[in-house]
């Protein structure tokens, strides 16, 4: 018998700290598989965020830097400018990227920094205990929107991919999801393509991954996948938002 599925080499063989059913683990694996397939592990430098994925530097089997909250794109820009031939990626959640780090991601994209950002959108702050994120849906109840998010007071969920796709420096931007096998396969293709674009020096690349947070959504992992499909995808349509030819 031959192995048809095994742990990618770019993912260190230790248990991850994520809650049961959290899709961070799936996305970590997809990033690592893309690194394996493109054979870029030895030249990849990753940047970990602040949030649930803060310990990503313990999981990816490559050189890593841990950034301050929201600052990963700036840190990645510093690294990439020093090592233009290396592959540099950031892995960031929605609080990190779309709230406190909004300026950094917009300007990294606008400068066309030749980096790849894996953006986890699960519509909530996980690590700090389920607070409202910029991507929290309308009427979604969180620790800091206990009556549901109201546009009059909290504004609207930000569609990061569409926003960044308007910038000239962005070379490839796609929104994917990991709620079922078909979409997981598609997500991996997108991440791989983003790395390929970076290797070709095309500009800024970002893959937004719709993800779940069973713990803070207060659902089982399976219910969470269904909630993602039913509630997030209608507001956050999947697909390629920008593809430089």
């Amino acid at each position, binding site marked *: 018998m031959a*192995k*048809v*599925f095994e742990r990618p080499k770019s993912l260190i063989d230790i248990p991850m700290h*994520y809650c049961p*059913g959290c899709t961070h683990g799936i996305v970590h694996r997809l990033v690592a598989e893309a690194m394996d397939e493109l054979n870029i592990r030895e030249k990849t430098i990753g940047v970990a965020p602040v949030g649930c994925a803060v310990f990503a530097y313990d999981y990816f089997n490559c050189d890593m830097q841990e950034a301050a909250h929201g600052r990963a794109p700036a840190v990645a820009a510093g690294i990439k400018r020093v090592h233009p031939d290396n592959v540099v990626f950031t892995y960031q959640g929605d609080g990190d990227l779309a709230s406190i780090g909004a300026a950094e991601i917009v300007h990294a994209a606008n400068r066309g920094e030749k980096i790849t950002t894996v953006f986890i959108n699960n519509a909530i702050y996980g690590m700090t205990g389920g607070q409202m994120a910029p991507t929290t849906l309308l009427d979604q109840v969180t620790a800091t929107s206990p009556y549901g998010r109201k546009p009059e007071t909290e504004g609207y969920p930000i569609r990061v991919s569409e926003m960044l796709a308007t910038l000239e420096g962005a070379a490839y931007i796609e929104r994917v999801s990991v709620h079922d096998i078909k979409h997981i396969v598609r997500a991996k293709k997108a991440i791989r393509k983003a790395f390929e674009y970076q290797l070709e020096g095309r500009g800024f690349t970002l893959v937004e991954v719709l993800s779940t947070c069973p713990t803070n959504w207060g659902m*089982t992992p399976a219910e969470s996948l269904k909630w993602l499909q039913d509630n997030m995808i209608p507001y956050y349509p999947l697909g390629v938002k920008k593809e430089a030819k």
Partner: protein
Amino acid sequence: MAKATFDENRCKGCELCVSVCPKKIVVMAEDRINEKGYHPATVEDMDKCIGCAFCAMMCPDVVIEVEK
């Protein structure tokens, strides 16, 4: 002929593998508890496994290996 191997002690019992198995052969082992305190996922009727690796692709903790 296919086989799914579960690293049971790393399983967090999220049951996502159960939800995607087309043959409905992945189950939670109700008779035992792993180091983390969960009933781990397992396959009892391995003869029915088709080696699609859906369980492994869905597992957030990368605890499943599949051979075919």
